[in-house]
């Protein structure tokens, strides 16, 4: 079976690095080693050029203008919608809502779909969710008396599938889970979870912030109902994210934000709504960044998502090996690299992650230290914070080596034997 053994990597990170202007930069006199890709990725030259091109040739407000610029701007903006629909194989581009980020997408589902729930209805989340897939539901629970349940995780950092049947019932209206944990790296079995959700009549919401940029994601093949992700974690600009949904579900949702674009007719005391997806896009959108995002997807498509996954799988396997060989680190998440995305969280019991990150920074290495917006998971792991290195297409094994050297240097610096 090739499912657990991805093909060998075919990417050429050093050639790729040349296409990302920021990677030419030095930090504290060292070449930048950027290992904070789960927080945000760097942007290729083509994305930057697309932003410039938009503003230098076609900038105008969208949807309402007759003039040439308005027409071009509208076409560029709408091209993003269809490009994203194609990239994740959405059933219909009318199901793609352009928002600010994955967080806004999840809030939109929690509020607008959540409005169909009543007290006593249940939403199933998990212990490994990002705050962005917890707090919107906490707000919903508070407003509507909806009950939140949380699928536990096993000690190896995976969803406890044995506990699933006991947590699903006819009361479950929504199952909302991450496709890939931003702390553990765990890749969750979304297709299987979706089947279980649908069996009890719940809709399946997937937080794909970490999966869409790093592995093939097929909305229709997974059978899911809602999918959320951010452009900025997928080599695109900040300020753009997506809620991809089955159109028939969107049709049943009321808008949660009012203004230009989203209306059909407005009277002083009442209004009627525009068709989907515009109903959910109030006001002037982030046109330029939406227009530029397809350039990032073009890059991913050029590389091939299987190759991207294989490359990052190779890196995480190598990183796990090298980090484990140090002997003193606690590593979190599944040990099997085939079950995780390209990131690794670790703790040096003698050095706080903040201090580790600080030492690494002086060597030009950027990692993240903290709770990674997953405080409940931190409590479950019984740590205040972890250090996290997360990979992208332009990273290579040499950078993993630099990380390992840095971790050794930190021990020396802080005088840990």
């Amino acid at each position, binding site marked *: 079976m090739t499912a657990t053994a991805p093909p060998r990597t075919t990417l050429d990170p050093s050639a790729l690095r040349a296409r990302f202007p920021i990677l030419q930069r030095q930090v504290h006199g060292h070449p930048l080693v950027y290992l904070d890709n789960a927080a945000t990725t760097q942007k290729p030259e083509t994305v930057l050029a697309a932003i410039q091109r938009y503003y230098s040739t076609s900038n105008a407000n969208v*949807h*309402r*203008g*007759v003039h040439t610029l*308005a*027409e071009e701007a*509208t*076409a560029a903006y709408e091209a993003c919608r269809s490009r994203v629909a194609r990239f994740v194989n959405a059933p219909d581009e009318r199901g793609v809502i352009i928002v600010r980020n994955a967080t806004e997408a999840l809030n939109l589902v929690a509020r607008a779909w959540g409005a169909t729930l009543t007290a006593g209805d249940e939403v199933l989340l998990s212990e490994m969710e990002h705050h962005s897939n917890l707090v919107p539901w906490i707000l919903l629970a508070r407003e509507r008396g909806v009950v939140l349940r949380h699928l536990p995780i096993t000690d190896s950092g995976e969803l406890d599938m044995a506990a699933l049947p006991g947590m699903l019932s006819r009361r479950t209206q929504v199952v909302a889970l991450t496709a890939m944990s931003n702390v553990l790296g765990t890749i969750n079995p979304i297709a299987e979870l979706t089947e279980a959700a649908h069996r009890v009549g719940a809709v399946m919401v997937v937080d794909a912030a970490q999966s869409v940029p790093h592995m093939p994601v097929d909305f229709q093949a997974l059978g899911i109902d809602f999918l959320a992700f951010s452009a900025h974690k997928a080599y695109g600009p900040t300020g753009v994210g997506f809620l991809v949904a089955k159109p028939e579900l969107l049709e049943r949702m*009321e808008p949660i934000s009012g203004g230009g674009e989203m*209306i*059909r*007719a407005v009277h002083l*005391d*009442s*209004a*009627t*709504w*525009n068709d989907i997806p515009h109903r959910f896009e109030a006001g002037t959108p982030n046109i330029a960044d939406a227009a530029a995002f397809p350039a990032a997807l073009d890059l991913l498509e050029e590389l091939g998502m299987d190759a991207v996954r294989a490359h990052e799988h190779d890196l995480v396997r190598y990183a796990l090996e090298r980090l484990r060989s140090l002997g003193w680190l606690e590593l979190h998440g599944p040990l099997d690299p085939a079950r995780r995305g390209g990131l690794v969280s670790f703790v040096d019991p003698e050095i706080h992650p903040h201090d580790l990150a600080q030492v690494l920074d002086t060597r030009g290495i950027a990692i993240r230290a903290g709770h990674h917006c997953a405080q409940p998971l931190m409590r479950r792991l019984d740590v205040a914070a972890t250090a996290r290195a997360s990979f992208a297409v332009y990273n290579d094994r040499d950078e993993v080596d630099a990380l390992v050297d840095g971790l050794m240097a930190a021990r020396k610096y802080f005088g840990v034997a």
Partner: protein
Amino acid sequence: MVDRPEVALDELYREVVLDHHRRPRGRTPLPRVDARAHGLNPVCGDEIHLHLSLDGDRITGVEVQGRGCAICTASGSMMAEVIPGHTEVEATAFAEVFRNVMHGKVVPPDVDMGDLEALEGVKKFPVRVKCALLPWVTLVDALRAWRNGATEGTATTETEEANP
């Protein structure tokens, strides 16, 4: 400056279109109204009030009122000319063909578009496609309402009224 710099415009505003715009057909109030609908273009606020007379399932009269641009007016005028005499099913199918043409598909060989052919140039002006389609969307609404037995057709382009 060239004498007539608007050459590109002639694609959009062909002579036939301008003629329908200047002397729109279907403005005479119908003696009897069997179906009606109200159409709205949310992009620009243009409105159409459409009245139909039917004899059995055959459309005998079309009345188009409202305010719209030249394209919208011409399209409504052409509709008022071409639709009478057709059955409800034929008219709905015709509207679908026209919609497809506006979205870049070719006219099926067995369909005679009549004056509407002159609106083909509109498809190069995406924002204006909605102008051309407004009368037809409204027609389909009116017929759907009629089919569903609503004596007064409801304007289904206006749904989900959000009254406070």
